[in-house]
C-alpha cells in the first residue's frame, strides 16, 4: 500500500512538472498586414548540428552508442546550418509583400533569459515577451527556434536498431506583445535516412545528402506558410 502511494505521488509530481504541449495555431495572414502593427523577426541561438541516440538508456549503453558513432558525431558537428540564418530575411520579405511593417532583429533571442509569463492558458506563451515591445519598438515578434539539427540513431540497449537518419526541426511562432498570446505557432520536423549505405566514413555522403535535404524540406515548409 505504501509503495502504491509512493508511485502515485511520483506520478503526480512528474505530470505536474511537465510543460503543457502547445498545439498548432494556424497563421492568419491578417495578423501580418499593414494594420497589424510592426513585426520583429528574431532567431534563437542556432545550435551546432549533433548526434543523439534515443533508446541507449543505460550508462554503458550510452557510452557504447557514443563510441560506435564517434566518427559520425565528429563529422556531424562540422555540418553547417545552411540557409537558416537567412530565414529571418526571407520571412521579413514575405511579410513586406503581404503589406506588413517588419524589422529583422539581428540580436539572438535567448529564451532562457526571458522571465516566465505570470498567467497561463490556451495559446498564451510560457515566456514573457512583452519586454521586447519597447526594446525593439515592435508590436509583435516572430520567433524562429531550431531545437533539433543533426543525426539520430535508434538504439535498444547496446544494439543499434536503425540506421542513422538526418533530422531537422524548426519552430516558428508569432507573439502579440500586447497580450503575450500566440497568433501563430507551428513546428516543422523532417527526418531522412541515407539512400543506400549510410556507413561511409569519413565524409558520410549519403547522410550528408540527407542532412541537406531535410534542411531544405523544413525551410520550404516554413517559408511556404508565409507565401
Amino acid at each position, binding site marked *: 500500500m505504501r509503495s502504491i502511494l509512493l508511485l502515485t505521488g511520483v506520478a503526480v509530481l512528474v505530470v505536474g512538472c511537465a510543460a503543457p504541449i502547445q498545439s498548432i495555431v494556424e497563421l492568419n495572414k491578417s495578423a501580418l498586414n499593414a494594420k497589424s502593427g510592426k513585426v520583429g523577426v528574431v532567431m534563437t541561438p542556432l545550435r551546432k548540428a549533433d548526434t543523439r541516440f534515443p533508446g541507449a538508456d543505460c550508462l554503458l549503453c550510452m557510452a*557504447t552508442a557514443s*563510441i560506435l558513432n564517434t566518427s559520425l558525431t565528429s563529422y556531424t558537428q562540422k555540418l553547417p546550418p545552411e540557409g537558416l540564418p537567412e530565414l529571418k530575411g526571407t520571412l521579413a520579405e514575405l511579410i513586406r509583400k503581404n503589406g506588413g511593417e517588419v524589422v529583422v532583429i539581428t540580436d539572438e533571442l535567448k529564451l532562457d533569459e526571458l522571465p516566465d509569463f505570470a498567467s497561463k492558458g490556451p495559446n498564451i506563451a510560457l515566456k514573457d515577451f512583452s519586454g521586447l515591445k519597447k526594446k525593439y519598438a515592435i508590436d509583435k515578434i516572430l520567433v524562429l527556434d531550431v531545437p533539433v539539427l543533426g543525426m539520430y540513431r*535508434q538504439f*535498444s*540497449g547496446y*544494439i543499434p536498431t*536503425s540506421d542513422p537518419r538526418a533530422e531537422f526541426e524548426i519552430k516558428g511562432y508569432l507573439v502579440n506583445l500586447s497580450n503575450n498570446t500566440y497568433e501563430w505557432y507551428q513546428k516543422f520536423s523532417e527526418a531522412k535516412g541515407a539512400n543506400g549505405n549510410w556507413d*561511409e*566514413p569519413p565524409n558520410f555522403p549519403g547522410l550528408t545528402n540527407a542532412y541537406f535535404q531535410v534542411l531544405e524540406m523544413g525551410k520550404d515548409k516554413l517559408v511556404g506558410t508565409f507565401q
Partner: protein
Amino acid sequence: MMSSAPQLPGCGNRVGSRLGTLLGVLGCVMTLGLNACLADEVVGAERVDGQATSGRSWTLKLPTDDKVVFSGALDFEGASVNSGFMMYPAPNAAAFLASVITHALIVGSQKDSQREKAQESADKVLDPYQPILSTISYQELARPWVDGMLPGSSRKLIGAVESPGRDEWLIETTPVFLMAQDQRTLSLDAVVSIRAPGVTESAGYQSHIRVISPAVESADLAEMWTAGQGKKLKEISAWLFSEFMNIAMSAAIDGTGQTSQSFRTIRYLEGTTEKMERAQLISEHCGRLIIKTLRGLLLSVPVKASTSSGGNTPEITCIQKS
C-alpha cells in the same frame, strides 16, 4: 569515379552494420582500448584522363547475358526496426555477451528481411511489362547509340568474349533499368569502365552514372508503355542508353565530371516529384542538368516538367537535335 572504403575488422568505425564490428566495439569498451577504435581509412579514387583526339573508335562490349536487367525503383532510406528498451540478463559475463549477440542477430536479420521485402514489393511495378521486358536485349537498346556516331569516328558492339581492335576505346558496362513506382519515369543506373587504346584494365576510367528520363503522361500508363510491342518502353530505354554512353565517353575523354564548383543542394524532377541532391553542377542543357553527387555519381536529370504522351518529350528532341 569509384572509391571504396574497406571494412576494418573488429575495431573499425564502420560501425553498427555488422555484428562483428559491434562486438569489436563492445570489446573495446570493456578493455578501454578506445584509441584503437577511432581510425578512419579512405581509399582514393582512381582516374585516367583520356587524350582528346579526333576520329576515335569506340567498342562497346556487351554483357554475357544479353537480357536487359529491369527492376522497380526503390527509394529505400534504411530499415528501422522498432524495439523498446532491452534488459540484458547478466548472471555472468558470458551470459551477458550471449544475450547481446542474440539481440544483435535478431535485429540484423529483421533489417535484412525488411530490405528484401521492400525490393520485392518495388519489383511488382514491372509485373504488367514482364512479357515485353523478357524480349528486350542490350544489343537492341545499344543500336541507336551505334548509329548515332559522329563523322570521323566509329562505334561498334562486340560480344563478351571478344577483344577490341588495337586502336579502339573499350567500353564495358551492364546497365540496370529502373521503373519508378508511379510508372511515369524510367532511369538507367550503371557503372561504366572505359579504356583508351593500350591502357591496362586497372588504369582504365571508371564512373557511376544514372540517367533519369522525363516523365511521361498518359491516362493508361501500362497501355502506353506496352503498345506496339513495347515501342515506347524500348524507345525511352534506348534514349537513356545513348545519353548514358555520351556522358560516359565525354567523362573519359575530356574530364566531364571534374569541376571545382562548390557543392550545393540542387533540385530536379523525378517523374512529377521534385527531388534534391547535394551536388556540383557539371552542365545544363535542354532543360536537363548533369550533376556530380557527393558519392561521385554523375546524374543526368530533368529540371522542367515535360508533358508528352506521344513521340519524344521536348527535352529528348532537343538533345537529339543538338
